[in-house]
């Protein structure tokens, strides 16, 4: 069970309050009709899946309900930081 700090509520809460939202900072296509099959593959399916620092989205589903970003080590599962959606990649 992870303890996750919600940057909006400014509290560390148990993982069961949160929903994982996958890798963070994957930008939606600005002009989808111009996207090639390669670009769609990259956007939809290719993930960095690192062993170590991982940027990921979480949603405080049973709290404020808002999305935020986090940096977590995927070997130790320790959160390095969490920050609000829209802030620059840390």
């Amino acid at each position, binding site marked *: 069970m*992870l303890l996750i700090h919600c940057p909006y509520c400014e509290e560390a809460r148990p993982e069961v309050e949160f929903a994982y939202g996958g890798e963070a900072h994957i930008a939606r296509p600005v002009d989808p009709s111009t996207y090639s099959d390669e670009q769609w593959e990259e956007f939809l399916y290719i993930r960095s899946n690192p*062993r170590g620092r991982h940027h990921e989205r979480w949603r405080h589903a049973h709290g404020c309900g808002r999305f935020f970003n986090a940096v977590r080590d995927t070997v130790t599962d320790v959160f390095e930081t969490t920050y609000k959606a829209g802030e620059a990649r840390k």
Partner: protein
Amino acid sequence: MTTMKRFSGFNLIGEAFRSHQGWPEHWPDKAPKASYDAIIVGAGGHGLGAAYYLAKKYGITNVALIEKGWLGGGNTGRNTTIIRSNYLYDESAHLYDHAVKLWDGLSQELNYNIMYSKRGVLMLAHNVHDVQSFKRHIHANRLNGVDNEWLTPEECKAYCPPLDISPRTRHPVLGGALQRRGGTARHDSVAWGYARAASALGVDIIQNCAVTGIRRGADGAIEGVETERGFIASRRVGVSAAGSTSLVMKMAGLDFPLESYPLQALVSEPVKPIFPCVVMSNTVHAYMSQSDKGELVIGAGTDQYTSYSQRGAFHIVEHTLAAICEIFPIFTRMRMLRTWGGIVDVTPDRSPILGKTPVKGLYVNCGWGTGGFKATPGAGDLLAYTMAHDEPHKINAPYNLDRFRNGRLIDEAAAAAVAH
């Protein structure tokens, strides 16, 4: 090549007269040579199977099997040992049934008791959607020559007596789909049996030797792998590294459509035989069997986040046990002895990737997600075939990387979530 002393009644009696001092080690631990005709990365069941079939069926015996830890120490030793092939789509049915056909007779072929037990896999239907979905699976399976049959609640109860089929239960049993050829096998024995047989055919099993890089030539083709014990040359490298596959692929400059998640399982204290088959309930997220040692073997779900930690959250286990207790109230006071986690590599369509890669000479077997054990002999055979012919077999041809680009996904719901 090493000599393998066959297990037989004759040899057993012979050894009994000399205190069993004459049995050789199952496989010698080898130091790597400078080069090989083929290298397999990852000595789990799939990689061991691939090395064995390369030597046995496809005539390539100068093979190195390189393993970061010890053989069979990853997901091969962490799964719930369930075997079945009742998948919906044609591609899946062919793939998984290829494996089930190889499971049959594998003990004899390897001269090693892998304890394949066709005790049947019973999937419970708790609502109208389950009933319709399972019947659709049964019809699709019949067209593909895969056995799967519908049981009424009373027939389910007769097949698995601990089931509570009264209509007052929280999750009433409306029937079930039974694959009689499904069952379990002893996972460690599978690894050991393949290792012993492959070693006897000339395969070098090199443990405690992590791959640290993949060397490609000026033309982009594979030249070999860098390891903790030096460079090993080969024009053919097959990667079968489960949760670590995307890390190995990055060494070759390839980004893969994979994410690695923890998947947990647990066992109870051992009790006398009470549970005769494998029971799965997809709706309430529970599956269980009883090992020959007497433990109830229970599979939990994946955690929601990616991780390489080989441990999962406690609330995942609690969720699974709640479901087990609801379906089998007799187990509410069983004590659980151990829980553990493995790291599974999951693809976007929950089907594996098994075939060639954009790099010449580099082959991959990955993405089996939460259900790779059942496919062990089939995946090994098909990876070996693909490496030997530089072309996929027609069974694994659909499981290429291109499907994530051309959209021809194999969106196998039966492979998703907990149903393994």
